[in-house]
C-alpha cells in the first residue's frame, strides 16, 4: 500500500530503530491520511493534545514509567517457562528489539495456520505462544507481565508508522470495528465518533479531546498511576458514557483496535507513550 507520509513520519522511517520520540517534542505529530475514504483530514497523535510536562515525561526514557515494564520484559524474554521448557528467546532469538521488528506496527491481524488461525492483537499472540509453544499458563490481560511483553513487541517498532492491513480476511473485522466506532452506546448515548471525530481539539470540562489514536499503547497514564492497554482505555470510555463495556481481549475490542489503528495509519508507534 502506497503511503503519503508527512515529513515527521518520513523522518521516523529514515531514522528507524534509533528514532527517538523526543525529536517530536517541538513538532506536530501528525500525518496525512493514507486512504482516500479516511474520515480525517489530518491524523494527529494523542501526544499533541497533552500538556508540555506530560510530553516531556514521554520524551525522556529515564522518566517514562512505561520503560520499567519494558526492562522487566527484556529479562523475562530469556527465562524459560511452562512444560515445554522454552523461553521467548528459544524461538525468537536473543534480541527482541531486532526479532520483533514489524510486529508492533502491523498488529492486530490474522496469525498462525489451520485450526490455530485467528485474528489476534499482540496480547493474544503472546498468550498463543505461551499456551501452544511454551505450554505455559496464559498471562492475564493488563497485568505487568502481559503489559511488559506487549510494550516490548510494540517498542521494537517505535518510530515506525502504524501499518495495519484491513483488506483480505481482515476486512470483516475492519467493518465490525467501524460499525462499533459509529454506534451510540450507554445512557449518555454517544459513539466514539462524537468525541474523537466530531470534537477532537475541543474541551469536555477539563478534558482535551483527542482523536483517540492508539499508536502509543500500552501507555502510562497519570490517571491510572500505571500502564494500561488500548482495550482498558476503550473500556474506560464505555464506562464514562455509562455503557456496559465489551470484554478486553475479545472480538468487539479486537475489531475496534483494528479500526482505530487504521484511523491512525502512518502515525509513528510511540509505545510506551505517556498520557494524562
Amino acid at each position, binding site marked *: 500500500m502506497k503511503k503519503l507520509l508527512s515529513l515527521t513520519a518520513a523522518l521516523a522511517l529514515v531514522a528507524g530503530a534509533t528514532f527517538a520520540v523526543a525529536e517530536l517534542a517541538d513538532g506536530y505529530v501528525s500525518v496525512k491520511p493514507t486512504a482516500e475514504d479516511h474520515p480525517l483530514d489530518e491524523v494527529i497523535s494523542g501526544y499533541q493534545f497533552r500538556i508540555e510536562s506530560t510530553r516531556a515525561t514521554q520524551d525522556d526514557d529515564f522518566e517514562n514509567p512505561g520503560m520499567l515494564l519494558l526492562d522487566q520484559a527484556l529479562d523475562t524474554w530469556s527465562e524459560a517457562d511452562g512444560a515445554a521448557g522454552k523461553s521467548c528467546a528459544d524461538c525468537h532469538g536473543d534480541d527482541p528489539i531486532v526479532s520483533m521488528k514489524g510486529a508492533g506496527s502491523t498488529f492486530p491481524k490474522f496469525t498462525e495456520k489451520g485450526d490455530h488461525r485467528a485474528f489476534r492483537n499482540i496480547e493474544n499472540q503472546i498468550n498463543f505462544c505461551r499456551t501452544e509453544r511454551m505450554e505455559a499458563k496464559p498471562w492475564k490481560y493488563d497485568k505487568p507481565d502481559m503489559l511488559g511483553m506487549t510494550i516490548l513487541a510494540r517498542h521494537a517498532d517505535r518510530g515506525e508508522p502504524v501499518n495495519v492491513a484491513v483488506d483480505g480476511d481482515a476486512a470483516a473485522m475492519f467493518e465490525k470495528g467501524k460499525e462499533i466506532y459509529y*454506534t*451510540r*452506546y*450507554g*445512557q*449518555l*448515548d*454517544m459513539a466514539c465518533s*462524537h*468525541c474523537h471525530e*466530531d*470534537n477532537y481539539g*475541543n*474541551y*469536555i*470540562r*477539563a*478534558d482535551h*479531546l483527542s482523536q483517540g489514536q492508539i499508536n502509543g499503547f500500552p501507555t502510562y497514564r497519570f490517571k491510572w498511576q500505571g500502564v494500561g492497554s488500548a482495550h482498558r482505555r476503550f473500556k474506560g470510555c*464505555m*464506562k*464514562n458514557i*455509562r*455503557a*456496559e463495556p465489551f470484554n478486553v481481549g475479545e472480538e468487539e475490542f479486537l475489531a475496534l483496535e483494528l479500526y482505530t489503528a487504521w484511523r491512525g495509519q502512518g502515525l509513528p508507534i510511540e509505545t510506551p507513550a505517556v498520557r494524562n
Partner: protein
Amino acid sequence: MKLYPALFALAGLAYAGTVTASEIAPDDVKIVDGAVEQPLTDSPGDPERGLVSFTGRKAGNCLACHYVESLQDDYQFHGEVGTPLDGIADAYTAAEFRAKLINPKTELPDTIMPAFYRTSGFNRAAGKFDGKTILTAQEIEDVIAYLMTLKD
C-alpha cells in the same frame, strides 16, 4: 469527563420516592414541533436548584459541554463542545428547552448531546443506569428555570 455513578445513583434514588401521579413519565412525553408545552411536574422549576444540576458533575454536568460567561468566576472548565449559552433564553422558550433536555435527537439526530429524560432506546446501558433517566422530572424543570435566566 469524570462521572461519579455511585453518587449519581444515590441522588436518583432520593428522587425516586417523590414521583407523583402528576409527574409525566419519560415514555409518555410527546415532543411536538420541537417543544413540550406541559411541565413534567406540578412543582415550578427553581433556577437555583437548576444551577446545581447544570454545574454538578454528578448531575446534568451541562457545563462539561456548554460555556456560560456569567459562571466564569465561580466555575472552572467550561466545555467547548456545545453551543455557548449566554443569551440563550432570548432564542428559545421554556417549552423548547424542555424538548431539548428531554431528547435533543428528535430535532438533531446526530447530536452528541444526551437525552436527559429518557429511559428506553439505549444500547448496552450499564446496569445501574439501565431504565433510569439522567435527570429527574423536577431536575429538568429546575434546569429549564435556570436556562430562562440566561438573557442578554
